[in-house]
């Protein structure tokens, strides 16, 4: 299997480390990290990613703005996006999915759930 790569966008180092640990158990998946939406866009411009996992509440550029920017750029239009957030309301979910996110996971997260979602979206 070719190497796949995931970009984790999260301002909390604690959450980032948890997600890196979780996704490092997916065989054939390498993981890169970004602190916020803007950092993620920079990394997207310099590297190819197969999936983006992003928080919503972040400084500088939040997760929803990132989704919007990614979906409006033809180069990244097909990259699946997973939202991981504390916002558990139905409206928040609806909004994120309407913007183009592919999956919506609420905190507290459990590693198996994240792994399952990522595998489904990557079809592995």
């Amino acid at each position, binding site marked *: 299997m070719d190497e796949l790569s995931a970009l984790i966008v999260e301002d*909390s*180092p*604690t*959450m980032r*480390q*948890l997600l890196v*640990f*979780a996704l490092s*158990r997916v065989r054939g998946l390498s993981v890169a990290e970004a602190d916020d939406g803007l950092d993620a866009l920079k990394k997207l411009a310099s590297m190819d990613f197969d999936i983006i996992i992003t928080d919503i509440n972040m400084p500088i550029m939040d997760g929803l703005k990132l989704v919007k920017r990614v979906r409006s750029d033809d180069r990244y239009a097909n990259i699946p996006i997973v939202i991981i957030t*504390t916002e*558990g*309301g139905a409206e928040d979910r609806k909004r994120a999915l309407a913007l183009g996110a592919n999956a919506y996971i*609420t*905190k*507290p*997260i*459990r*590693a*198996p759930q994240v792994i399952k979602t990522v595998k489904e979206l990557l079809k592995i």
Partner: protein
Amino acid sequence: MDGDETGTNPAEGPAPNGAPGGTLRNYLKRGEAFIDEILRHNELLRLRVVQLESQLFMDNTPVPPPAAAHELRVVFEQLHKEHDEIERRLDEVAHETEAYKERYAQIEEENDRLVNLFVAGHQLYSTLDLPNAVQIIVEILLNFVGAGRFAILILDEPTGELHALESYGVDRGLVPVMSRDMDPVAACFASGKPEVIQEVPESWDVNQPLVCIPLKLGQELLGAVTIYSYLEQKRELTPIDLELFSLLGDRGGAVLESARLFASSGGGPRSVGAYRELLMNEGGHG
């Protein structure tokens, strides 16, 4: 009849060929031979009847299979046996798969537990910066546990009251001051273990903590973490949550106190001399 129509004794009468005595005897002998022959024929016919009956009986029995059919039957029986064996093996494999699935789920759960505890512990000890240490405790409570409103309280030793150092989901100034002598603080300070209310009564006071975790510093108690509510998607506390509470209680106090001491020491230049001096003063080593 005593005699024939000629009125002569048949035993002594003329033979048909004209010799009266011999002719009769010949005639009788021929009759005897004729009767023997009839009897023999009769016997043969009877035998033939028996043979035919036997043949008829044989015709009504099932036709014995020819060689090819016999072989097919053997193959069929063998295939049937193999089919049964395969079905039995399939059942076994299905059971094994189910057992592996169960085991896999258990291992996943265990991995999840260990990853949570490892990351929380690793992050807690990753800094001596007080704001950073506080932020890490907040992140663990919010992201790992799913607490919605909570506070980190520090014990003011002179008054015996606990005041909020940091809060989330509620303004710090609105976090109720608690006394170390009143429950749930008194109870968790006495046991040194988190006090957890699993089922919340309907008339619960929202300012009363659902969870009270003592922040320990060895045998001393530095303060407490109080949780007042959870995120709306948080359905129930899990065993991992309870382990995280214990981890925060056992390590959180030490982390906060280390950060406080480090900040108050001014964080001067590190030298091996300074470490040795501390070793001599604190541990009595030469």
